């Protein structure tokens, strides 16, 4: 049950996903107490190793670790270590020598957490690598939908936006299809990656068709600075064709919910008035992110190989 590292949803079995969701439910209860802290990971050290800046995800992991009483250390190699030309593996092994019980890694290049995991003793949790995977985001999305709908099996989930460059889309595609949902991807043809249907999703270039009968609409952030003029003509045209507003949302089921991993571009992928209230559940996602990351830290950092080795020794 469950490998040493959490590198991607692609590697997980259905039963493992279910176990993480059930554990998250218990963790969520902790977050509703007056004293939001349990001693579960007391004496454990967790390093947040973020090569790519991400205040939101890092903060979520940090709060999750602290609610479990772990000692959380943030390490963000900045330009200073780049100028020192220390390699990523050297940085990671330096930290490993300080005996952490888990290392949470974010990097802008796909595959880096895997390379680090291959080199380290501590378990590695992927907090997002390039356009590859962002497993804890998908887990918190699963948890949110599960809470809203009471099930995953049989739902239709439509993911809208820049699929090509999105780790969130890939992780969610695996997560929801493993638990029996139908996953649809909607984007201009330039942002649907080659061979994506082989991963188990249906792709659409018509937002209307992709939304018909959808229970969940998940919007992705458009990186305006990188994409406009290259993958689509303009923000205005994107907002008109793939931006979600209340009018377009009517094509989905009446009780459809709207999700977004954040940070949102108001007026681009999501209309202003849709972002702040039902059926949008964007802030619930953020709240659930802490519970899900507590579950992940508990399951992966709570039984580190160092601990096992010490016990045996």
């Amino acid at each position: 049950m469950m490998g040493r590292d959490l590198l991607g949803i692609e590697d997980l079995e259905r039963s493992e996903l279910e176990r993480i969701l059930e554990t998250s439910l218990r963790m969520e209860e902790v977050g509703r107490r007056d004293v939001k802290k349990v001693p579960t990971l007391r004496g454990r050290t967790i390093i947040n190793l973020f090569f790519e800046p991400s205040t939101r995800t890092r903060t979520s992991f940090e709060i999750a670790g602290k609610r479990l009483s772990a000692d959380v250390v943030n390490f963000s190699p900045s330009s200073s270590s780049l100028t020192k030309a220390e390699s990523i593996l050297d940085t990671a092994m330096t930290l490993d020598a300080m005996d952490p019980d888990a290392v949470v890694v974010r990097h802008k290049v796909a595959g880096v957490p895997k390379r680090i995991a291959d080199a380290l003793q501590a378990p590695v949790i992927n907090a997002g690598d390039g356009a590859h995977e962002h497993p804890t985001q998908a887990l918190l999305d699963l948890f949110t939908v599960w809470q809203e709908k009471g099930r995953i099996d049989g739902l239709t989930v439509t993911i809208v936006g820049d699929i090509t460059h999105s780790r969130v889309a890939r992780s969610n595609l695996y997560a929801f299809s493993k638990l029996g949902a139908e996953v649809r991807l909607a984007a201009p043809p330039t942002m649907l990656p080659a061979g994506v249907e082989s991963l188990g999703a249906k792709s659409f270039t018509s937002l209307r068709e992709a939304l018909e009968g959808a229970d969940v609409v998940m919007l992705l952030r458009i990186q305006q600075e990188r994409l406009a003029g290259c993958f689509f003509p303009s923000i205005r045209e994107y907002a008109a064709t793939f931006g979600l507003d209340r009018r377009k949302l009517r094509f989905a089921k009446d009780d459809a919910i709207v999700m977004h991993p954040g940070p949102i571009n108001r007026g681009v992928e999501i209309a202003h008035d849709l972002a702040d209230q039902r059926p949008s559940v964007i802030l619930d996602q953020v709240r659930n992110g802490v519970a899900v990351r507590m579950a992940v830290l508990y399951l992966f950092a709570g039984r580190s190989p160092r601990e096992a080795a010490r016990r045996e020794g």
Partner: protein
Amino acid sequence: MGRICIRGGRVLDPSAERDELADVLVEGGRIVAVGPPGADTGGAEGVDASGCWVAPGFVDLHVHLREPGQEYKEDIASGGRCGVAGGFTALVCMANTQPVNDDPSVTEYILDRARQESPARVYPVAAATRGLAGEVMTEMSALVEAGVVAFSDDGRTIMDSGVMRRVLEYSGLVRVPIITHAEDRTLVREGVVNEGPVSTRLGLPGNPAVAEVVHVARDITLAELTGAHLHVAHVSTAGAVELIRAARERGVHVTAEVTPHHLALTDEATLGYDTNTKMAPPLRSQRDVDACRAGLADGTIDAIATDHAPHAVHEKDVEFTAAPPGVIGLETAVPVTLDLVRAGELAPLEWVRRLSTGPARIIGRPGGSLAVGAPADLTVIDPERRWVYDPAKGFSKSRNSPWIGREMIGRAMVTLVGGTLVYDAHRGVLAP
């Protein structure tokens, strides 16, 4: 350089369509007799080749020896040792050294070092444009006079079609091939793995097959216009194979090579993010691999060339996107490509032709023949020999191979260059 007799082997000489058991007698640096086994050779030193194949030495049209300038990756001596240990007696080395081989002084330096240090013959390729910048053509007459056998901006594609046209046109003066590294950079962009289901799963930028196909189409069209000899380096796509086949049928002077890794591995080898599976062009789909194998079998592709590209461990042990592309290949080419023989896709004689006679003809140098009077460049291959590849036990200064730890079948046992025994699998590299 005495008398050596290679006894009892299966002699495979594509230049004479010979495939029979024979002894090969070498004297004075040349082949002096090929005849029925067991004849009296008057006290010549014997090499037992029973159970083995005796072939003309292999000619690798595409290696990076890294000297001058990057001797920490490889140098002419270590690259030459890799060559003879892999059955290669001649290496055609690319121009992307530091400084670039775009001037006769660099060519002369390489040839001088090779004469002193390399057990294999070395034939330099000069840059087609100064500094590999794709703008101003190099002094082709002077460079050919200095000893280069072809021109190429390998690793950097000449994107300006007008420049490429003039390079091809001008090469008519010196009558040597122009080697194209055919990848349209505007289609490749930041792509690092073959675009398709694998790049999508990995989340790495895709390099589409059409980047090669579009460029091969352009270069064939320009070769047709100019009548030049175009050689397409490391063909990797079904589309390019198809274009080359059609061009040859209508008489365009185009030749081509394929690497062992593009014959043996698909992009799925990249799924673990191992940077030793990062090449340029990238590993492609099964359909492309099948097309390259078929193209090699039917003669559309003339040569197997390794694109031996050494890089230091610290250069490869980085993020996938930051790692330099390329793998070493001289010591593994024989077992990896023997797979086509075992699979019944290439007869042994044709396999030898793609490794020796075919490439030697492309550069217009001796080699690829065991005819009486030919230079005694030959190799003895044990096609059944089983061994496990460990680059630390090999001769390269680098370790970047996708075959580390793999069981190999087939190995060069003995190599002679100019009648001198330069390699013996049991004793290592013996000269210089």
